[in-house]
């Protein structure tokens, strides 16, 4: 079997021996460094031991996880609906597409930090600021992905559907939407990762709840153990959300070969 095929046959989110070995080596090196830090001239707080990190994990407040998760999910749903609606309008109207496409490319080129600063300067409400930043960053990704997928629906299927004379809504909901579902799932996976990273930065500025806020507190307290613990939570959250999407994807796309 060619090498490429072998590599593709390894299922996602499983832990092959190599992964476990590399994680174990990392943990051993980290733990050793945490004990050797004083002898190496590294401040003791910089590389906390796993016992210290475990203590930080134990103090994690679930409400902050729930708040961040709620912000991410709400913003992703809003971004998806907005992106899909605008993509549908752009697909229908060539002139709208020509006017909006450059604008969207421009929005996508703006760095996240700039959006956060704009949000702080423009809006007084913290929740609105965070929501705005997430939607302005994730919305265009959904939009471009779904629009590209709509243009990629095979001409033969579009022709067949049109021959049966559907209404505009029927055309979208019975052909275009189901046809682009695989792309929608891919876009969700990309956006989950993006949203987790963006929400953390957005919460650093002005929020009094959420993982980003807790990371900010940990930074003020010079607690690397707390930063490590919250980072672990973020990574776990990302894997959890991706696993949920992957599960739904398998169920929804069971028609695929």
């Amino acid at each position: 079997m060619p090498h490429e095929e072998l590599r593709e046959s390894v299922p996602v989110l499983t832990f092959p021996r190599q992964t476990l070995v590399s994680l174990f080596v990392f943990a051993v090196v980290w733990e050793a460094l945490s004990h050797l830090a004083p002898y190496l001239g590294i401040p003791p707080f910089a590389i906390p031991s796993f016992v210290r990190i475990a203590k930080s994990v134990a103090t994690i407040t679930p409400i902050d996880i729930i708040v961040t998760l709620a912000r991410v999910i709400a913003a992703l749903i809003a971004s998806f609906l907005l992106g899909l609606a605008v993509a549908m309008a752009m697909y229908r109207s060539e002139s709208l597409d020509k006017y909006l496409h450059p604008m969207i490319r421009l929005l996508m080129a703006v760095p996240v930090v700039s959006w956060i600063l704009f949000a702080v300067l423009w809006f007084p409400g913290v929740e609105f600021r965070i929501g705005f930043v997430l939607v302005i960053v994730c919305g265009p990704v959904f939009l471009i992905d779904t629009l590209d997928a709509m243009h990629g629906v095979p001409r033969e299927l579009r022709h067949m559907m049109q021959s049966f004379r559907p209404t505009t809504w029927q055309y979208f909901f019975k052909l275009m939407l189901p046809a682009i579902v695989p792309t929608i799932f891919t876009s969700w996976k990309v956006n989950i990762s993006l949203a987790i990273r963006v929400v953390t930065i957005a919460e650093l500025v002005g929020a009094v709840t959420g993982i980003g806020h807790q990371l900010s507190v940990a930074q003020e307290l010079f607690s690397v153990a707390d930063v490590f613990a919250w980072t672990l939570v973020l990574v776990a959250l990302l894997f959890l959300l991706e696993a949920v999407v992957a599960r739904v994807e398998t169920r929804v796309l069971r028609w695929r070969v």
Partner: protein
Amino acid sequence: MSGPPPIKVRGLRKIFRQTTTGQSVIAIERLDLTISPREVVAIVGQTGCGKSTFFDLMIGLEAPTEGSIHIGAKSPHADFDYFRGRIATVFQQDRLLPWRSALDNARLPLELIGVPEEEQHERALSWLNRLGLAHFTNAYPHELSGGMRQRVAIARAFAVEPDILLADEAFGHLDEVTAAELRDTFLKLARECGSTAILITHQLEEAISIGDRIVVFGKSAKLLADIHVAQWSKPNYGLLREAIQSTLQSDRPDPRLKDPRTETKRKK
């Protein structure tokens, strides 16, 4: 019960402008054709003669550049929505929606015309049964053979019991045995349904075996011959085939097509 309306094509022209060169290409040049209700008409012609353009004009997806197509008093393009559920199509490839089961594919046109869900289910199931797919209603397209998929596509077209059935090379990609079997089924169902059927094909055997009439298109869909197959006796089908072949090759009507009876006598 009112039958399907007649189809009248008058002075039909279709010109396309090529996007790259800006040149105009005449796809159909002044076509006149009348198709009576419940007729089964086979349209034959060489590749690039405008058969598929005629198909798109009949569906109503393209507008004529000049002239008109009328089905009864309505135009399939100008009165596009009127023909929802009245015109159905079968294509060369099955064009089934891969995310829908055979049953859900067959009921698609019924959903589009707003038939109640229970009735959709019953009608689609009944057509799949008639096409020999009773045990495959829940199968996805990728789980079916090419012939079975085309049967689902035929069931989808018949599900609305349309006035006009249009088939574009619908059996051309299948093996001869499957194609012959499907042709017979298609013809039988079209007769039972009382639909007018227009089949576009490049296979003369298919045209002769299925059509009440064979319309031969020359270049730019110029009408070279309009043959009523009933005027030809079965033993003379070979001659008919030769005459159509010669018409297509020379792009001029073969004299043998003018009066088949004379030709038969002469041969004797």
